[in-house]
């Protein structure tokens, strides 16, 4: 059982997310993350869905998605043939002594401070899944107040679309 990522171009209108998510739900395929947004053409949106399954599941997901009328294109984004990134906002607990230390910690992950106060700091971190997980693990030591992940977004490598 491995994680796999599909990129999907869908019609940009209401109910489409339901159809796509419903297809995963119907067969009991869990969605690990889902990111969706309009493309350069407002008629279409692009989704990136990360899910877990074997070759059979992967193949079924792709073929079943292709059957949906609102789905225009589906592509499996293999790890070694795609570029992926995830964004995360994290609110960390702060005490005065640790302020400088934590700023440095965020910097070491090329993160940005988005907001701060006497006793908290909100950082933005981007990166691949491995980097995000590593940050979360370290941040737990400091104390996480709140966390929000965008879900992975992904494009194929090279010049060609798809």
């Amino acid at each position, binding site marked *: 059982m491995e994680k796999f990522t599909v990129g999907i171009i869908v019609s940009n209108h209401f*109910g489409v997310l*339901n*159809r796509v998510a*419903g297809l995963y739900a*119907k067969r009991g395929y869990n969605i690990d993350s889902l990111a969706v947004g309009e493309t350069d053409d407002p008629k279409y949106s692009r989704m990136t869905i990360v899910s877990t399954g074997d070759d*059979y599941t992967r*193949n*079924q997901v792709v*073929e*079943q998605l*292709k*059957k*949906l*009328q*609102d789905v225009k294109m589906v592509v499996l984004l293999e790890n070694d043939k795609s570029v992926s990134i995830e964004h995360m906002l994290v609110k960390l607990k702060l005490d005065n002594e640790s302020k400088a230390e934590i700023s440095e910690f965020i910097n070491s992950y090329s993160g940005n401070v988005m907001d701060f106060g006497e006793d908290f700091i909100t950082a933005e971190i981007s990166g691949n899944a491995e980097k995000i997980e590593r940050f979360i693990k370290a941040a737990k030591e400091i104390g996480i107040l709140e966390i929000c992940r965008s879900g992975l977004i992904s494009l194929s490598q090279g010049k060609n679309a798809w």
Partner: protein
Amino acid sequence: MKLSGAEILIQELIKQGVEIIFGYPGGYVIDIYDALYENTQKINHILTAHEQGAAFAADAYSRVSGKVGVVLATGGPGATNLITGIANAYLDSVPVVFITGNVAVPMLGQDSFQDIDIVGVTLPIVKHSYVVRDVNDLQQTIIDAFEIANSGRKGPVHIDIPKDVQKTACEYISDKANKNILKIEDKNQDICLAGINEAVKLILNSKQPYIYCGGGVTASNTGDELIELSKMLGAPIGMSMMGIGAVPGSYELNLGMSGMHGRYASNMTKSEADLIIALGIRFSDRATGAASKYSNDTKIIHIDIDKAEIGKNIYTDVSINGDLKEILPKLIEGLKKEKLIPNKKWIEAINSHKKQDNKPKNDDFSPENIINSISNHFDKNTIVTTDVGQHQMWTAQYYGFEKPRTFISSGGLGAMGYGMGAAIGACFAYNKKRTLLITGDGSFGMNLTELATAVSHSLPITIILINNNSLGMVRQWQTLFFHKHYSSTTLDRRTDFPALAKAFGADGIVVSNLTELDKALTNSPVDSPYIIECKIDIDEQVLPMIPPGVGVSGMIL
């Protein structure tokens, strides 16, 4: 020309060639019924007793005629009553367009009176669906809906039209062209020649080939090609329930249905085959049994129009995705170049299995004899509809179907109650000629109110009600697998069916032997439904049976 949404709908339906709609009026479709009122010469609307009956009628109408069925219902309960019918069309890949009215757009989702997000409810059981929020989109939506329903792997499409959209006028373009909205998967594709070559190779290496025929053969109208293939290879044909009728039952190498209640020869032959050529079939659990029990040495060629079906339920050695109507001629052409020698020993083995199916019969009033009598009585164009349960399996096993689209039954969904609505739809598709409904006391009880519809339209539907005073299929499982705990399956209903028929304005009779049955079949009126009740023993079983999870070795004879 400016028309209201309701008028656009009706004009476009007429343009799509729709001659008949099954439906039920209500508050949110009054405008559409008003537009229908003006067009009764062009579109015949059949009012049923319940929306579910309308859905089943349109489904069966489509199965018999090959055309797209159309259903019209109001919002809320009218729409929710369609759900079983939509699911039925979905699981058996029947092209039906379901049209529902709904509350006005500003009221949608406000929990207004009869406000149900019916498109949300039906999402997992439609091929596609629409909520038309702007009357300017309506005409194109209808055109697209028909094209989607009737292309590729066919299926139900649902259009929800809020009441204000029906009332609003907009420009109607009477010669609007199709926009070519089909998915690539549903368009004619270049058939993969490599797949055909590989299939030819596997066939040449096979000594014991078996052709496994599904509903896709009927949908693609390729029964003749199938027989040609069968004769070339000396390969028997077995079928899923949905495949019944695609090839004449009298064809010597047609072994009939296989699967859980399949015929002995069909199942044994399939289990002994070294190659299964599966055509227009999806290897459902009921038809296939335990996929793990298939021999590892058996090769499988799978040809289907739906690419997602390939490898879904069973591993295949060679697969070709596309329309059988294009692929089979190419496959046959490829095989004609080769030297094919049908294996005599294989045919002998099959013939010996067939002896088990053709055991001499006594003339008692058994289900098998009842079905045989009915089969012998009617010409082979007669449409036979069934409900779901033991009587359905007996019909599938013993009725001699010779023509495609004459056996109309709820396959994938197994919806009890299908029969009465289906018989009405089938009868209309068959020009109101004699149509049969073979049903059971359980199933008939579910939608017998549709007798009223059949009476209103003077439909000559002969209803053979096989009455065992129980929900026989479940009882059979309770007998075999649940220590004879007959939990809620014994029907102590004491319904007087002939009297019931009379109350509906029809007639009926109870028969207790084959002679009386035959006489009653002859006496069925030409302008009214007629119930013939056949009382059988409560413990009659559908055999053979392969219990779930075991192979043919576990077949109960």
